[in-house]
């Protein structure tokens, strides 16, 4: 059990650090979340999907 916990923690730590590094590089090279929201997320209409999901649980 302890071994699995350790492996999970190490894997998630590696993923987290590499994700942060990639995001850092992307930000330095001109990446922007606000632009992504305007282009990708608005097209997908993610907020409407989230509202829909919440609607299932609220009664």
């Amino acid at each position, binding site marked *: 059990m302890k071994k*699995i916990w350790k492996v999970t923690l190490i894997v*998630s730590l590696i993923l987290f650090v590499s*994700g942060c590094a990639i*995001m850092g590089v*992307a930000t330095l090279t001109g990446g922007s979340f606000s*632009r992504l929201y305007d282009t990708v997320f608005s097209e997908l209409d993610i907020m409407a999907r989230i509202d829909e999901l919440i609607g299932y649980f609220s009664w």
Partner: protein
Amino acid sequence: MIELKNYLSIMEPKDRETALSRYEAIFDEAGEEKEDEVIARLGSPAKVAIAIKREFEGRVPAPADTQPVPEGTGDESSGSALEDENSPEEDVSSTAPEVDEAEKEVQAENTQESPDTSLGQPAPEKRLRPLLLVLYIIPAVIIGIPLVALALALSVALFAAGVAALGGGVQVFILGFSVVGLISDSLLLFGAGLVIFAVGLVLAWFAIWLCGSSLRGIVGGIFSLGRRACYKEVRSA
């Protein structure tokens, strides 16, 4: 030799055979006439057993006088080997406390495997107090069930959040491939996907751990408290 064999019964069979064959060789070499002399020189079987045991544990080297004598030397050399250093009387007297200590050590080791239960006092008997048990069960159930439910609800909520984060991370990562335009925006999504996935992994596993440990802790705590409260120790005569 039989007594020595008994003392060495705690040793590895291979080591025991090696040691016994060495001492048998010494006795064979000395012959029947000088058997008593050899016994007096070596000391009691307990002392010899301790020496052998220490030697095989690597604590001390083998005593010089227990090494087999080369065959070419004949009876003279064995006789001189027996007569050198101290006389038998001096040897026995100088090692008497050591022999006692050695015998005690061997006996202690032999008795470790079969502890004598008759030495200690009889174990106290535990008697159930039914009235206290009934009085304990009611608050234990009233407090225990909501606690278990709370722990379960918390674990399930955390697990759901973890699974949602895992799914979300994968979704965001895949979304990175669909971005048309700047590569940096795709990278941003890849990075965010990895971070969300990592958080989801930790959350999901933490929920599993919390569920197991909290349930075990609550139920185990209630039972151990009950055992302490509802049983009375009575010393039997």
